[in-house]
């Protein structure tokens, strides 16, 4: 289930240094949001904060749940049940098949969850056109690998998808094909996307783009989907 985002006075610090400061920010459930900005501006830190991977101050609510107030293990559990993550360099287990990679979350979920995750992983791979079979993903192209990573992120049926430069490792053609498939899937499923990206092709397909500079949101374009 997609959840609305509400941020108030969010702050991420490293010692005495403030890495990120976001005043008020909210987004409805199902919004596709891009984050851009120069290197080192705090984009990835914002994404890590939104995913609960780092400690934050202030208020960071996904629906009714304030991640800033949760202990790390509770944040991990929240992530497991509500978020899918996509990484720039896929982070797949190259020795495993696409199905095993896509259904990875089933390995640490309850017996009850395993079968639906495996089914969704298979469906996701099929929808994204990933070759099935016993081949390991080590022999896959970059585009195929990122599709496996997307299938993995969606296999738990999360309401939120957080992506860090999802097209950065792909050539233009593969990136465009992926953007088409990804946005199509998310809109069809009513899921929220927050994607850090420099890819203008991706950003222009999203509902809204935030610009982060020097740890602050300096622009909120509210760009509408094409």
């Amino acid at each position, binding site marked *: 289930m997609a959840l609305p985002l509400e941020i108030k006075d969010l702050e991420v610090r490293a010692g005495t240094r403030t890495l990120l400061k976001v005043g008020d920010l909210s987004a409805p459930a199902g919004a596709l949001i891009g984050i851009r900005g120069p290197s080192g501006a705090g984009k*990835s830190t914002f994404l*890590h904060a939104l*995913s609960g*991977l*780092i400690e934050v101050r202030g208020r960071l609510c996904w629906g009714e749940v304030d991640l800033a107030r949760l202990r790390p*293990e509770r944040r*991990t*559990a*929240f*992530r*497991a*049940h509500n*978020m899918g*993550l996509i*990484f720039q360099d896929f*982070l797949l*287990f*190259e*020795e*495993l098949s696409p199905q*095993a990679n896509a259904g*990875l*979350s*089933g*390995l*640490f979920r*309850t*017996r009850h969850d*395993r079968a639906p995750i495996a089914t969704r992983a298979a469906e996701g791979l099929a929808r994204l056109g990933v070759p099935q079979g016993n081949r390991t993903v080590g022999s896959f192209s970059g585009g195929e690998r990122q599709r496996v990573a997307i299938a*993995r992120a969606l296999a*738990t049926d999360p309401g939120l998808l957080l992506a860090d430069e999802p097209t950065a490792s792909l050539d233009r053609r593969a990136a465009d094909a992926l953007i088409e498939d990804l946005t199509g899937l998310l809109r069809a499923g009513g899921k929220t996307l927050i994607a850090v990206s420099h890819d203008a092709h991706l950003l222009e397909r999203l509902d809204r783009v935030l610009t982060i500079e020097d740890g602050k949101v300096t622009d909120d374009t509210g760009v509408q989907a094409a």
Partner: protein
Amino acid sequence: MRDSWDSLPVLAQDLIIAGALLLPLLVIGGILLRGFRPLPLVRALMWRFRWANLLFVLLIAVSTGMGIGLIAQERGLRTGSAQAAEKFDLVVTAPGSELTMMLAAVFLQPSAVPLLDGAAYDRIANHPQVQIAAPIAFGDSHDGAPVVGTIAEFVTYLSDGQIEGRIFARSGEAVVGAAIDLRIGDRFTPAHGRGSGADAEAHDGVGIEVVGRMARSGSPWDRAILIPVETVWEVHGLANGHPFEDGDRIGPPFTPELFPGTPAVIVHAGELWANYALRSEFTVAGETMAFFPGTVLADLYRVMGDVRQAMSVMSIVTQVLVAASVLLGLFILTRLFQRQLAMLRALGAPRRFVMAVVWGYGVTLLVAGTMLGLAFGYAAALVLSRIVTHRTDVLVTATITWAEVNLALGFLSAMSVLSLVPALVVLTRPVVENLRQ
């Protein structure tokens, strides 16, 4: 409590000890793996670092196998030598080294030993508690096998009567051990001496016929050729222990004045308790020495035990070093895999699952290495046993018992506990930091 334990069958005790040794591994495994399926990721780790893993498994196998092989071999040697000496209650020889005399008389190792005279033999043979007093005369050989002169009663006693054919009944006949390559009806001429210095022509013209074959005993006597002691004396141009008018008679009684001498007399008493009195009686300063081969072997085992202990310490040190290197390897390999492990945490995997993957990986290496080590130890003991058996004719049997299994399980269990350390260290690393690397 102690009584309850002692009342249990040995197998039950061994199983309980094995279970207790495995308990830490099972408890940790149960806690970490409950509800999770880390196996595909363990398999991925195994395949990713397959050559390093193979090396670790071999290291563990060699270190475990060394310890196991050592214990199994030493036990096999003890059992085999004790079984080989089983029929030799009491040995009487001229004074000297008990060990040398035992090796010569019981294990038929070539040795120059002084002789007992007819009077000494007569005193032994006519003692009321002595059932068998078998003179043993050696020094000749055939095809490398010792030709031993003795009496028919001893052959029957030695073989428990299990003889194919018959026992020698006159001079010039022989009963061969089970491992001798001669058939009943074959004839041979003994060589004087044994080994490379044996003179094959010294007894030319002497023909000895094989009339019987003893069943296998697992002792050096399987490779011995037993002939009447009179034949040994006769082929060496000595009196045969009997007056001329006795004709071809063999066996006791012997006439002391016509008794050329014997290196040893194997004594079998009518009653077990009598052996102690006989040992005391036949130990006469400057004349005769009586000893129990079992006691000499026990002294030998004590020395062997010290050597084994020293080697066991070396083996344990090796195992500790291997354990340290495996742990270090786990640290290094999990570091190479840390982005994937951090990704698991980012996807929402609980800490326990990540620990289960790392720990499961380590334990898989350990289990594979330990199992291979058991097989390696058994194979090593088997090969060594065959070599020792071939060289000494003492039947050394290699077996892996619960002692070795428990040693391996103890190592496995201790290492499985230590494998928690790299698993815990993985969790101390910040997820975001690892993802960025």
